[in-house]
C-alpha cells in the first residue's frame, strides 16, 4: 500500500498496525485500535517508540481528545468513500483540539477526495491497493481555488475573503 504525505509520495510506511490480540512490538511505531489504547494506555506510556490510534468511522475526535498529547498519529477510517464523517473528525482534531500530530486517512478513499482530505487537516493518506498513484497527485492540481477557510492555509484566504483584499 502506497503512502502519501502532505500530498506527495512518501517512503515506506513505518507504522505497524497491531491487531487487538497481538503483542505490541518494541522499538517501532505502532497503530492500535481505540479500545486497545484505552485498555493499555498506562502500560504503553513508557514505550520508546510512538503510538497511534485508529478510529473507526463511528468514533469521533472527542473519543481521543484527552489523549492527543500522547499520540503521534490518529488514523481515521473510511469504510466507504461516500461516508464523509472522517472529514469532520480531522477538522475537529485540528480546529477544536489543536492536534499537531499526523492525521491519516485509511480505508476506502479516492483520488478525487485528495484535496478535500488535506483541506480538512489530514496530513497523510494510505492509498488503497490498485489505485493509480498519479491520479492522486494530479487531483491536487485540478481545483486550485477555494471558497472557504480550511486547515492548510494559516491565514484563510478564501474566495469570500478576497473581497476584503480587493477593497483595501
Amino acid at each position, binding site marked *: 500500500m502506497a503512502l502519501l504525505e502532505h500530498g506527495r509520495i512518501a517512503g515506506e510506511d513505518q507504522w505497524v498496525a497491531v491487531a487487538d490480540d497481538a503483542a505490541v512490538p518494541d522499538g517501532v511505531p505502532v497503530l492500535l485500535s481505540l479500545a486497545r489504547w484505552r485498555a493499555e494506555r498506562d502500560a504503553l506510556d513508557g514505550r520508546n517508540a510512538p503510538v497511534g490510534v485508529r478510529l473507526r468511522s463511528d468514533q469521533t475526535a472527542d473519543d481521543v481528545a484527552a489523549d492527543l498529547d500522547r499520540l503521534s498519529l490518529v488514523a481515521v477510517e473510511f469504510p466507504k468513500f461516500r461516508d464523509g464523517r472522517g*472529514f*469532520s473528525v480531522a477538522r475537529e482534531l485540528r480546529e477544536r483540539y489543536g492536534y499537531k500530530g499526523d492525521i491519516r486517512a485509511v480505508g476506502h478513499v479516492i483520488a478525487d477526495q485528495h484535496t478535500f482530505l488535506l483541506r480538512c487537516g489530514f496530513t497523510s493518506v494510505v492509498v488503497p491497493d490498485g489505485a493509480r498513484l498519479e491520479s492522486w497527485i494530479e487531483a491536487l492540481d485540478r*481545483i486550485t481555488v477555494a471558497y472557504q477557510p480550511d486547515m492548510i492555509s494559516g491565514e484563510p484566504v478564501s474566495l*469570500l475573503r478576497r473581497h476584503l483584499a480587493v*477593497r483595501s
Partner: protein
Amino acid sequence: MTHLASPNHAGIYKYDELDRRFVMERVEQFRDQVQRRLAGELSEEEFRPLRLMNGLYLQLHAYMLRIAIPYGVLSTAQLRTFAHIARKWDRGYGHFTTRQNLQFHWPRLVDVPDILAELAKVDMHAIQTSGNCVRNVTADQFAGVAPDEVVDPRVYAEILRQFTTLHPEFVYLPRKFKIGMTGAPHDRAAIAIHDVGIAAKRAEDGRIGFEVFVGGGLGRTPFIAVKTRDFVPEEDLLAYLEAVLRTYNRLGRRDNMFKARIKILVHELGAEKFIALVEEEFARLPREKYRLEPEIVEAIRRSYTPPPYEDRPADSLALDREMAGNADFRRWVEVNVGAHKQPGYAVATVSLKPIGETPGDISADQMDAVADLADRFSFGEVRVTHEQNLVLAHIKRDDLFALWQGLDAIGLATPNLGLISDIIACPGLDYCALASARSITIAQDISKRFADLERQRDLGELKIKISGCINACGHHHVGHIGILGVDKKGEEFYQLTIGGSAAEDASLGQILGPAFAYDDVVGAVETLVDVYVKQRQPDERFLDTVRRTGLNPFKEALYGVA
C-alpha cells in the same frame, strides 16, 4: 448567436477572474473523471457521486443534466445559453424545477463536459445540483423588488452558495442538503420544507440577523422545520451553518438512506437535544475564522445594486387605458402582475403552465423570446420561481401591455398565477426512474378540466402539487390539494391530501381516504373544488375553508357518509 446587447443589470453575482478559473477547472476535472470512468479506472460506484455532484443523473430513458440557477436569477445571456444548449445537445427544450434549477432531459454522457464548458462561458455550472451535498441555495423570487421585503436574501444566499461550494468537509454528507432563504414576512421560498430554512430579518436597532429553521423536508416522512435560533447575528451566519452541518455530518444516519436526512436526526434526537448539540459545536468553533465581516457582505451586496430605475409616477394612464380596452390583458394584469417597491414599476410573473402543457417546460425558441423581452423591458434579467414559473421583475407599468403582447405571441401569457392550473408537478413516470406513476399528464388533465379562466379566478388561490412517487419532488404534502402517485399492482393510483401549505403558515396536508384510479383523479379534484365553492365564506381561500371545516365535508363528498 446574434442578439441584442443586454444591459448588465441582472441581479446575479458578478464573477471575477478567480470565480471563472474555478468553474473552468471544475469542467476540466469532470472531463478527466469521465475519461477515467471510460478507461475503467473509476468504478461505476465511484463515478456515480462524482457525476451527481456535477448535476448528472441517470434517468429512465437517458441522462439528465441539472444546472444550478443560484436563487433563481438569470441574465438574458445565460437564458440564451440554455436555448443554445437545448438546440445543440438536447431536444429543443428545458424544464425548470421546484428548486429554481433547469434540467435537460436528453443529453449524452460524452457531450456533458462540452455542455458544462458552454455554461462556464456565461458563469454557470451544475455543481452540487445533485448528490449528498449542499444543493443550490434557493430564495424568494421577488428578492430586491417585493414591497414587504426587510432584507434582500440574495446577498446571503450568494454568500452561502460560495461557502458551501466544494466545502471540503461537507461534500460527502449522509444525504442531500437543501437551503432556502427569504427576507420578507410572506414566505415565497417555502423555507419550512428545507433542511435549513433561513429568514433574514432586522433587530430593533436595525442590525441584520437570521431566524434559522432546521429539519424540514418532504419525501416519505415529511416534517415542517423547527426553529433552532431566533436571531443569528450576521457575522455568525457561516459559523452557525458550519455547526449545523458538522452536527449533521457526524450524527446523521448512514445505515439507511431513507432515514439519512437531517429531519430524521432532528426528529430522533428531539429538537431540544439537537439544538443543544448545535449550540455546543457553535460555541467551540473558532469564531474569528468563520466570522462574516461586514466588508465581505458589502462587497457581495454590490452585485445586487438595484437597476437604474427612472423616476416615474406611481400610476400609469396608459396601463389604465389598455386594461379598460382589453379584457384578456386586464385579466393577466390582475392575476399575474404584482406590486414593485419602486413607484411606476411592476413585477410580472410569466406562467409556464399554459393550459394542458407540461408544468415548467419551455422551448428554446421561447427562451430566446423571453430573453429578448427581458432585454427590452426588465434590465436583462429573468428569474425562476420554485413554483416553476418565470418572473420579469422590473417592468415599467407603461410597458406592461407591450410585454403582454410579446408573451402572448409565444404562448406564455396564461393568466393563472396561484390559481388551480398553476400546478407544481415532478417529471414523474414520463422521465424518472424512481416514479410510481405519471404526474405531468395528471397536471395537464386538471388544467384542461378547469380551462375556463373565469372559473379559475372565481376559485381563487388554489395550489395543486403532484408527485409521481413517495419521494415528493412535486411537494404534494404542502399542496392545498396534494396528489401522490402510487403503484398498486402495476396500476397507477393517486392519493389525495388537502390542507397543506408551503408558505409562512406551513402545514402538511392530510390524507382524505383510499386512492383513486388514474381516470378518476380529475373528477375527484373537481368534487373537492365543488365542496369548497359550497362551503366557502367571503374572502376564504380553499385552504382557509379546509382549515375551518376540517376534512369531513370533503371526505363525505368523495367517499359518501361513513
